[in-house]
């Protein structure tokens, strides 16, 4: 599904140049669950942003399902993103002004799905995430674990092929964290490809393969399954 080769990303300010990704190369296959680990500042989040088409690389190649997307313009990236990729963030990133239902519904609205179908699909996914009873609550009325389940629900509601998770358990206690990891595992078992950035060895063990990064490069790859 994903093939990256010699991927580069350099952040420049007036005085400093920081190499975030240094000729990074790896592949992710359909249906895989990959964990990316490494110390702060090693380039994990940059990688995830490029994989999620939120940012563009400064060099190298990025094939998504066989299409070179490294130099897509913003409109094309947005279009590809909304049809194929779901995001889960450490800080949940729910919109405070919208209810649980409305947050989950939003990607479908942007996809142009009709109202009745939207309702059906949102309810189905809320049910699956066991958060249906909170559908009319606002994010700040929920616990961290509940918020992350809503975020996962939003990430999967349009049936993306790929889910990118950026430290999805970072703000959760261990039991809530386990629940979220369980959810991700189930999604993966149903065929969704997952790439997860994490600091937690415990969470990384849910994956099939761990890519360890340092200074913008992969250092090792551990295959777990």
């Amino acid at each position: 599904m994903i093939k990256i080769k010699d991927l580069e990303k350099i952040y420049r300010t007036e005085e400093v140049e920081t190499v975030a990704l240094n000729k990074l190369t790896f592949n992710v296959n359909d249906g895989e669950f990959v964990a990316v680990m490494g110390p702060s500042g090693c380039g994990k989040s940059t990688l995830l942003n490029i994989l999620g088409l939120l940012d563009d690389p400064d060099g190298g190649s990025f094939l998504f399902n066989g299409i070179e997307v490294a130099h897509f313009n913003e409109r094309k990236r947005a279009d590809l993103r909304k049809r194929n990729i779901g995001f889960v963030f450490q800080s949940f990133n729910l919109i405070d002004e919208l209810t649980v239902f409305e947050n989950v519904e939003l990607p479908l609205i942007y996809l142009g799905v009709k109202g009745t179908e939207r309702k059906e699909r949102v309810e189905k996914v809320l049910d699956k995430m066991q958060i249906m009873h909170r559908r009319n609550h606002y994010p700040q009325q929920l616990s961290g674990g509940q918020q992350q389940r809503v975020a996962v629900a939003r990430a999967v509601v349009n049936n993306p092929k790929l889910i990118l998770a950026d430290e999805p358990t970072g703000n959760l206690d261990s039991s809530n964290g386990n629940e979220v990891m369980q959810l991700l595992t189930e999604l993966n078992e149903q065929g969704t490809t997952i790439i997860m950035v994490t600091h937690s060895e415990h969470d990384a063990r849910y994956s099939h393969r761990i890519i360890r990064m340092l200074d913008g490069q992969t250092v090792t790859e551990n295959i777990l399954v």
Partner: protein
Amino acid sequence: MLRNYMKIAYRNLARNKIYSVINIAGLSIGLACAMLIILYVKDEVSYDRFHSNVHNIYRITRQELDKNGVKGTKDPNTGFLQGPRFAQNITDIKYYVRVQSGNVNMKQGAEVKDKDLLYVDSTFFEVFSFPLLSGNPVTCLNNPSSVVISEDEAKKQFGTKDAVGKIIQLKDDSVFVPHVVTAVAKKCPQNSSIKFDILLPFKESKEDASDNTNWFNFFLNTFVVLNPQANISAVESKMNQFYNGDSKDAIATLSAQFGDDVLNWNSIYSLQPMLSMHMSTDLPANNGLSDASNPIYSYILSGIALFILLIACINFINLTIARSVKRAKEIGIRKVIGGGRKQLIAQFMGESFLLCVIAFVLAIVFVQLFLPVFNTLANKTLALSYLFDVKLVGGYILLFLITALLAGFYPAMVLSGYKPVQTLYNRFHPGGKNYLQKSLVVFQFALASFLIIATFTVFQQFNFLTNEKLGYDDTDIVLVRKDFKSHDEAWLFKNELLKNPNIISVAPRNGGSWGTAAKLANDTTMQFDYETIDESFLPTLKIPLVKGRNFSPDFPSDSANSVLVNESFVKQAGWKDPIGQTLNFWYNNKKYSIIGVVKDYHFEPLNKMIRPQVFTMKKNNPYGQVFIKIKPNTAASNLSYIQNTFKQLFPLSPYSYVFMNDQNLKNYEAEAKWKQIMLFGAILTIFISCIGLFGLSVLSTEKRTKEIGIRKVLGASVQSVVTTLSKDFVKLVMISLILAIPAAWIAVTKWLQNYPYRISMNWWLFMSAGTLVILIALVTVIFQAIKAAVANPVKSLRSE
């Protein structure tokens, strides 16, 4: 999608109450001002439009032309001849109608009332579209003893609108003559330059109509209706051609009598479209026509409304962008889950539209509430029913769209451009140095400061106008008007009044203002204001003489041979020794010698220059009013004494009185209104600017919470934190003052030039306006700054 936008827009409004209130309050006030001004301007431009053939109605106007062909002052007035002669000789003129103002004593029950009226030709209702409730518009003014009255007048006189055939007694010379009501007219529209309650047929003797010297009398308004196909300039040149031929004999006759000066009395005739009359500054609707207006009022009002609306829009832009830090996360999320830039722009525009809709509805409520106040201020009778006019509704919708776009578009463009990678990872620092925000704040406060300085100036000038020494004493003087048949009749009244020990003196004078011209010994002609008084006039008003003597009963020939002049007259005549000089009055070719010089006094309001004045006691000149000086604090008893004396002596004349100082104050009613309008405008602009500044200071303080925490941990005092937070804003306000002061200086200097007597521009006026603006701004921001400075730093640092 739309529902989703509106939902989130609504929730954002509800959640951020301060910003919503600031934005809605500002925008609704701004919109309400703009709506009121649109109403005002619409009314101004609608004047006289209701006449069905208004596009073919013109007023005959003239411009003075001297013997060298140099054009002089424009004059909207004409006389007996222009209407009928031009109409008879120029085929493109279909109708003419002369409109002359006048007043008449009318019997109403046992009382006699003084009524204003118009003398008009019988074509009046064919030229103008004033609907009649009853009566025949074509014939109602044919009979000299007919009268047309308004429905209001009919109700006053007869208690019913059904008045055709009834009799009204109107005084003609000294007897009451019955007039038959031949028609009752509907109340004149409020946007009409011609307003009447009583119309009488135009009075003209055969001699008047045939005397060619009447080409040189200008005392009424003549309107003509042209053929729709007529070429205006062709008609004008035919008018001048005819006039030049027809007036030749008269000029010869007059020249024989008065010399070559008569050649300076020529005119060039023009046609003024009726539609341009209401707001004309050089050819105003005067002499019996009403509501003459100056377009500058429309410009100033529109300017103020635009200022206020612009300032409110700036608040919206500034606050939305300042708040964007908080919304950056939402924008990032929307982009991550598939929202495109267009959709985000649509969303933010939707929010500004929703806000504008709320502000718009509120503005309509404000307009409803403040219309009466505005009407008083602007001297209008505007009604909200105007709002149902299609063009006006269109204008308001346009205003709404422009406001929503103006306020919403820029923030929408900025906000939708945020990169999700930055907003979602707290790497987001919007705005950089915020030059735009700063410039907008500077712009706002420059506008507000400009208006405040202007308001200060208007106040100062008004105080000057109302408190400046007039050169005479107008206190404790009661003014009673009456057209005395002779000087003896006036003196009879005077002597009766003087029997009361509380009445100090009584001085008769001519009614209204007179002017004429006379030839000096060196053959130059001078125009002047012409006062008919007696020897008690100057002492009663405490007007000093600078040379010579006053009129005196010891010199019985004074009334026949002597005149007084004022200092301006002497100055213009260029005399070193005025006493004994002679004036040769052009209208009777008789010489009068000057016996005294009166110190200049403001016989007209201070917005007019003191002109040359000549005082006479000539027996043929009638007195029209008396000035009665009473002892202080004796008004109540004196007023009834004066009234009783008047009624006893003149039972058939209407009685009314006014205190002279009250009447003088009335001269400045326009200035008083402008004073209030400017005050309102200034208060609103500074208020809206300040709520915007308040919002910005709240946001800026929030943004700097961490910085304040660190400063306090490092030992900063409350005072130094407050200074840090306030100084940036105060700096901006000071820059705005630097911009506003020169602009205001230019504007107010220009405005003051309208007044021959005016205040001098003072630095302290600008200083005090500037200090006021800075103080207001400081009070606005300091509240937030203190709140932030006294907060516990541990909290602010932890929350980071």
